[in-house]
């Protein structure tokens, strides 16, 4: 199961600061979208809008054609760069938690046979991300890569239609990162969900994505840098049967180099 996501003329402003403007984007079900761009270009803001953690100032965000529910929910899973797992629960407890939330409204705990069934299910997920022998450890006993794998297992336990990744591998060493790429690619194909990933690593974006979207400020006012928001500057189809690039291939404005020097 996967979902389509659509942005219709979306703009995001924090007070007088314009973060994103004129954002029109349709993400087809089952695609793997990589979002790149410099810091402050609104990549994470865009992700948080899909998550429901943030609302657009203008325009609409649609999930499967319906206006987005204005709060996070189980249909959209997420893995952040940090703080994605619960430090007070073991690996098993972390994965089990999603099942417990669903099964028991008041106590949010499972007992007896239902608990056993959920444990079997959780263990399958834990094995899938390669943490089988660490199931009784606490997150602080795991390496950064293992914590992120746990976060992924936890997120896909709810079989979300959309998986959002906010620089999930940014803090990992290159070897671990390569392993994580394999894992996420496998899970994406296996679960058939729509994935939106924010990354700083262009290579990662090209390696994993079926579509690459670059956000950047196209117009700049040196006196009031906050007056212009970022827009989509590149939108590349990375699937094998399509020509690259497809649309929006424009050279970056000259102001870009000035910004880099400053």
């Amino acid at each position, binding site marked *: 199961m996967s979902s389509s996501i659509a942005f219709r003329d979306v703009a995001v402003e924090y007070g007088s600061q314009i973060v994103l403007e004129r954002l029109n984007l349709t993400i087809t079900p089952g695609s793997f979208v990589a979002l790149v761009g410099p810091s402050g270009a609104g990549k994470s803001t865009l992700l948080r809008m899909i998550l429901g953690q943030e609302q657009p100032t203008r325009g609409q965000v649609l999930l499967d054609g319906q206006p987005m529910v204005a709060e996070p*929910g189980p249909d959209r899973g997420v893995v952040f760069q*940090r703080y994605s797992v619960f430090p007070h629960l073991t690996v098993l407890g972390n994965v089990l*938690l999603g099942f417990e939330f669903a099964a028991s409204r008041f106590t*949010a705990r499972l007992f007896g046979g239902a608990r056993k069934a959920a444990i079997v299910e959780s263990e399958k997920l834990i094995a899938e991300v390669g943490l089988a022998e660490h199931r009784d450890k606490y997150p602080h006993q795991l390496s950064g890569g293992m914590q992120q794998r746990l976060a992924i297992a936890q*997120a896909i336990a*709810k079989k979300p239609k959309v998986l959002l990744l906010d620089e999930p591998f940014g803090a990992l060493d290159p070897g671990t990162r390569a392993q994580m790429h394999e894992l996420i690619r496998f899970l994406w194909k296996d679960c058939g969900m729509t994935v939106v990933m924010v990354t700083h690593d262009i290579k990662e974006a090209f390696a994993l994505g079926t579509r690459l979207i670059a956000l950047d400020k196209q117009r700049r006012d040196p006196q009031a840098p906050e007056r212009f928001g970022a827009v989509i500057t590149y939108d590349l189809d990375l699937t094998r049967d399509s020509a690259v690039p497809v649309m929006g291939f424009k050279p970056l404005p000259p102001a870009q180099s000035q910004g880099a020097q400053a």
Partner: protein
Amino acid sequence: MRRLMNIAPGRGGGLLLALLPFALIAFLYVAGSAERRVANPDDKLLPPVAEMAAAVKRVALEPDRRTGDYVLWTDTAASLQRLALGLGIATASGLIFGLAIGLLPLAGATLAPLVGVLSMIPPMAVLPILFIVFGLGEVSKVVLIVIGVTPFLIRDLALSVSNLPAEQLVKAQTLGASSWQVAIRVVLPQIMPRLIEAVRLSIGPAFLFLISAEAIAAESGLGYRIFLLRRYLAMDTILPYVAWITLLAFVFDWALARLSRRAFAFAYVTERR
């Protein structure tokens, strides 16, 4: 020469260094007491250890001639009951309100300013009001502890809830958790260590309020006793009582610290040794 900040005592050395100031104080006391006795055999200010031991034996092991009570134990029971009730009520309400204020923006907007103002009321200033409203019995003493400690607990817990990373709360929601489920499965276990820490810090103020209330109006209790004996300059009993109160507070503090480390080991992994 190594820097002073890099020189740490070993295990035995640490124990020795910890005992040193206590030994020093004990020595100074004994020496001072002896010296005063030489100058004035009726000195009451620094009674010798033997007299204090006799006084302790009298209050702890012999029934009072008038009431038949073992004074030290009835005083301790009365005080601890007040303290336990006061701290218990304060802890429970501190947890509930602190969690609500920290997690729910609506509760925070409604209650946080109120708690901010209430916490500035000096509790001792409302003691007369408590005596008027609740009488001179047990209730006013318990309420004084509650009033004195609860605002601090609420603010401290609300702060520690709002210090939880937003990512965790969002993540829990993406796992399908309701507000209630987030509160009991994500927030509560993570603020429990801080709650215990805050209660530990509250033991001192709680004793302060307890003894103040007992000093003013009571018929038993540790604070009542030392203020009663003050009239007779009975330092031989007052000093052991103070030591006993200190020991009780120290033991509670130590027990809570142990409990927290046992039950919430995850919270202590990042601390500096």
